[in-house]
């Protein structure tokens, strides 16, 4: 179970999850940088996603973590078929999205839905809740006949813990947590099998955050959903995820199950990320391994040679500039880790 790039059915079975629902191989998304007004000339590419491979199984939650600009959101949109991949393969429930016609994409897409970060921005303030949650039915009219829709919307509202009588209210009449529930109801409308959660709780207060996380977990069980959970709050990701992929500058640098990543991180970036998370326990102050990274993420338009993390890495040596480390298991790590010097380091417990 160490090689997600060559996952076998055995591996899926051993993880206690069903068949594969998403399979991504070497997905690449480069955005062109153009210059000129009349004659546009491509002068470079932003390598937002640069060769990413992973699988997602039925009922499983894959957490994707990384700093802003690492390509998490582009990746989630590539999986949804909202942004076509530049190359590679994105297989969704047996259908290959790369190169698919827009008309066919539309049909496939109903199986993947998304929950956005900001419940204030992702709901149209001039639409009623009924209109928002029922909009997917308008786009896919074969899913629910017109007469059925109101009942279906009310059912959805009930499922996410909202009062079905509030169907004619507008988003501003709800609190942040309730609005996120509206977004979740909309995502559930077409009974998708996969839901991409793009920072679904980042904008919420702690107490409300817990409510939404609980709801997401309940829905996963109820509808056998697979989640791709993109977030930067590592404690929430740990709570909800079965497996976690750590991304840096368009690449996965380490991927493994929750215990591997959190208890036995081997990539220096994973370690730095984990050590940077403040722990709500003042007793641990000064007793944890502290890795403070210097500088910012380099530009994805011009990533460093060799290992992309080397410019900020505390372990970097000459080889890191010359040879790009592959995402494989090494002596120092059970799970695949893209570092020449992968070695376990405990960063979340008191070690000093």
């Amino acid at each position: 179970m160490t090689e997600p790039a060559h996952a076998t059915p055995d591996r899926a079975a051993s993880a206690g999850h069903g068949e594969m629902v998403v399979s991504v191989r070497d997905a690449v998304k480069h955005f062109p940088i153009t210059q000129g007004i009349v004659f546009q000339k491509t002068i470079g590419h932003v390598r937002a996603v640069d060769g990413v491979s992973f699988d997602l199984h039925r009922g499983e939650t894959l957490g994707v973590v990384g700093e802003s600009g690492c390509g998490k959101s582009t990746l989630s949109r590539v999986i949804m078929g909202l942004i076509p991949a530049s190359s590679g393969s994105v297989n969704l429930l047996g259908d290959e999205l790369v190169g698919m016609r827009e008309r066919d994409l539309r049909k496939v897409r109903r199986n993947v839905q998304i929950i956005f970060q900001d419940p204030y921005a992702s709901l149209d303030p001039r639409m009623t809740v009924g209109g928002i949650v029922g909009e997917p039915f308008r786009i896919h009219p074969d899913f629910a006949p017109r007469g059925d829709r109101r009942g279906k919307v009310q059912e959805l509202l009930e499922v996410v813990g909202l009062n079905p009588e509030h169907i004619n209210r507008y988003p501003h009449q709800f609190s942040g947590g309730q609005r996120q529930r509206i977004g979740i109801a909309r995502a559930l409308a077409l009974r998708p099998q996969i839901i991409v959660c793009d920072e679904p709780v980042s904008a919420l207060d702690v107490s409300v955050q817990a409510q939404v996380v609980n709801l997401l977990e309940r829905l996963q069980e109820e509808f056998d959903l697979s989640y791709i959970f993109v977030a930067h709050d590592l404690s929430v990701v740990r709570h909800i995820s079965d497996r976690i992929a750590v991304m840096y500058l368009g690449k996965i640098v380490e991927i493994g199950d929750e215990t591997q990543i959190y208890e036995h991180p081997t990539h220096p970036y994973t370690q730095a990320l984990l050590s940077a998370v403040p722990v709500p326990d003042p007793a641990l102050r000064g007793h944890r391994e502290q890795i403070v990274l210097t500088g910012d993420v380099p530009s994805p338009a011009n990533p460093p040679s060799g290992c992309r993390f080397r410019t900020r890495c505390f372990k970097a040596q000459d080889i890191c500039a010359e040879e790009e480390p592959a995402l494989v298991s090494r002596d120092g790590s059970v799970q695949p880790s893209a570092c020449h010097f992968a070695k376990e380091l405990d960063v979340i417990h008191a070690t000093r």
Partner: protein
Amino acid sequence: MSATQDIKPADTVGIGREASEKQSRKEAARSDALGFDPSAPLLEVEDLHVEFRTREGVAHAINGASFSLSEGETLGILGESGSGKSVTAQAIMGILDSPPAFVTGGQVRLRGVDLLTLPEESRRLVRADRVAMVFQDALSSLNPVFTVGHQLAEPFRIHRGYSKQEARKEAASLLDLVGIPAASGRVHDYPHQFSGGMRQRVMIAMALALDPDVLIADEPTTALDVTVQAQIMKLLADLQAERNMGLILITHDMGVVADVADKICVMYAGRIVERADVHSTYGNPAHPYTKALLESIPRVDLKGQQLATIEGLPPNLTRLPDGCSFEPRCSWARERCRVDDPPLYDVGAGRQSACHYYEEVLGS
């Protein structure tokens, strides 16, 4: 510029107090004349009341908040959105929009002087010079049409009467102080040319320009990545220790506070419901709200289980309940809580809790 003294060589122009004390060249506005007593406590907020008079009614944003801060101390103010943490900060700074906001009672004493009684001109002198603030969203707090150097130089020119060149030099050394690489070259850059973390560093530099005694940081790292957050928190802690500033850290992130605060105020619906040192707050909370907040954080040993939640919503500030504001959401609530608003009880060892049943909460 009517500078009469000799211009000092560039390398002796330091930042902060030493430099400012040497400055007498221009009749610059100073806060010294306001009668601050160096032996008085640094900052004391007592029974602060703030209300917002809106069309929907009067929202009681702060209902009697009291706390104090001494030199070199870090006070964490914790609370959810709408609990009044930012309004408290703005009231101390004197930057509340009025109307609709009105300070209706209480005192904010800085070195013995009640800031709330000062006329606006005097408060302007106190801002930046004595009390400075770092805001959450650095991009919207910086002016996009002026260079960073220009904005950083402003406090020196306005409060200290420096010449343009001198102020520009100070700006560069400030950027250097907050760890911006190649600082002297970057003073000519505009805010949009900086990354999020770098912008927040610029904000901190600006706040520290005149070496304030109190720094208020309102959610300074909320918009940043964890790795950058760690950098910024370290920078704040280092600068605070170096300058022996009092630091008020306003946040909803229980982790950040646990890492840096000495003492904590937990706010709910405009009141401080618990006040204690950081170890007691996290180790053995004395208020049901604090306890519930701590329990709603995902923890490793709770993996696979439901997270504890606080059901319901914070009360509408225009219609606060008669009794305890937390009563409708509280699992300890009884009949008495509905009618009798609990005062801040002393619960021992310098801690207070606004709960009638704090003993049970403590013992649980």
